[in-house]
């Protein structure tokens, strides 16, 4: 564990070596949030679908959750892809350590600034739009952990694909486009028709962002909430088991440079 913490700290410090880069990173983060809110403000200007406060809270939450769990840009997947493509993974595989933990620590170090900003955004959003009951607060934490698990599987799947196809930018982009739209990161699923929304809620994608946010307003556990909890647990376990198995199989077939 100490080794992985050191890897994370080292990578984070390497990034901090360029202070202007950190400033630019912070600006980039807020640009994204500000323009997302501005776009929806312009779009919904003449309607009463969302209040200004709800809009800000929703997109702060959606952005921060997807950044913390790496569901937005698939940072872990990117680290895996890059090291596979460059052959850098070979040096990790021959060492007595867990390649996934190593990559995860490195990724956490690379996006340390983003995670800190995301946590701050999450706190601001929860202050603007706090959970309605202690139960909704507990469920929010549960769904946040669940979102992390699903996102982990999603990132690892991307890395596993790279072991088989090497250059997976295309499929990665396709996955990201779909997940951004259907997880509620760029548009709340309340905009979708009820049929489509109900259909989507059976899939793992809305559990990445929309469900954790919507759960903040519940007061009691009804049959819908119970179904969402069960579906979330099902996808977290199933996806991770499947993807871990795919990763191991792909790794066995992987023909590293120098073989």
């Amino acid at each position: 564990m100490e080794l992985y913490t050191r890897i994370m700290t080292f990578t984070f410090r390497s990034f901090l070596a360029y202070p202007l880069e950190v400033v630019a990173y912070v600006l980039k983060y807020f640009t994204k949030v500000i323009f997302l809110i501005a776009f929806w403000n312009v779009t919904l200007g003449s309607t009463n679908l969302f209040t200004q406060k709800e809009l800000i809270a929703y997109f702060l939450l959606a952005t921060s959750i997807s950044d913390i769990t790496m569901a937005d840009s698939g940072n872990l997947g990117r680290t895996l892809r890059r090291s596979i493509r460059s052959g850098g993974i070979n040096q990790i595989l021959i060492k007595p350590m867990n390649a996934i933990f190593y990559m995860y620590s490195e990724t956490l170090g690379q996006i340390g600034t983003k995670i800190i900003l995301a946590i701050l955004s999450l706190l601001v959003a929860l202050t603007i739009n706090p959970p309605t009951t202690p139960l909704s607060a507990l469920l929010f934490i549960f769904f946040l952990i669940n979102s992390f698990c699903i996102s982990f599987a999603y990132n690892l799947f991307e890395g596993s694909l790279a072991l088989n196809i090497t250059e997976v930018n295309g499929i990665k982009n396709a996955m990201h486009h779909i997940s951004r739209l259907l997880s509620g990161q760029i548009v709340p699923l309340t905009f979708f028709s009820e049929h489509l929304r109900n259909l989507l809620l059976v899939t793992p994608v809305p559990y990445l962002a929309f469900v954790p946010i919507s759960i903040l307003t519940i007061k009691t556990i009804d049959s819908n909430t119970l179904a969402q909890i069960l579906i979330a647990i099902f996808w977290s376990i199933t996806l991770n088991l499947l993807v871990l198995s795919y990763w191991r199989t792909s790794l066995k077939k992987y023909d590293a440079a120098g073989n």
Partner: protein
Amino acid sequence: MQNLKLITKIIKNSTELDLAYFWNNWLSLLSVVIYMATNILFIDIIFSKVNNIAGYSRDEILLISLTSQFWFFFTSMIFIKNIQNFIKDVNRGDFDLILSKPLPSLLYTMFRNINLLAVLREGVPSAFLIVVVIKWTNLNLEFSNIAFGILIMITGTFISGIINFIFSLPVFWLGQSQSIGDAFYQLEDLSGHSNFVLEAYPNILKIFFTFFLPTLVSSSISTSVLVGKSNAVEMLAASIFVFITFSMILKFLWNLGLKNYTSASS
């Protein structure tokens, strides 16, 4: 003539490199089709709840998606890739190799990789998808506006390449500028493209994003001209002015940067 020969060789080399990744080529195509399909779905979802966005109808918003695609494919697949390579080269000390070549360094750095095949392979199907879903009869398009709009779109794409390049130049002084470049690219994407229309801005921001940080030209302004919401001649003149000004700024900063560049072998 020598520059033309160089560009032709670059295009040939980039195409051969691109063809080496068979699966990725087809999956990239799939990716852009999916992206466009999700973008169209996104717009339709919005217009199921609202009638217009800052005065733009569904089809006018789809038109800005079309002009954004032109910007995106040329900027991200030609300029941004070369900018990323440039930053990496300076950061790792490989830039010396470029300077040692008997080539115009700025031109070579800006156009070292021209992946026209990828631009066509992915850009055409993506644009075709939008062309199919736009109800053209709902748009009030005039010939002169179309001609001026396309000219502005092309000029705007070059402006975008130039300004993105300017934002990568701090690498000469700082040794790294990836996040600075990324931050600008994101600002450009969100402020001037991504369905964000010119008319949504207050006047002061319109001026700022047209003349001082020109992110609006290639998509927002060109679309505004295409649909007849802005004066075509004035906007073309403004875009040419911005193009010339920022070309000069780039040339000046490039020379300044080279003077300050401490190479790996120095």
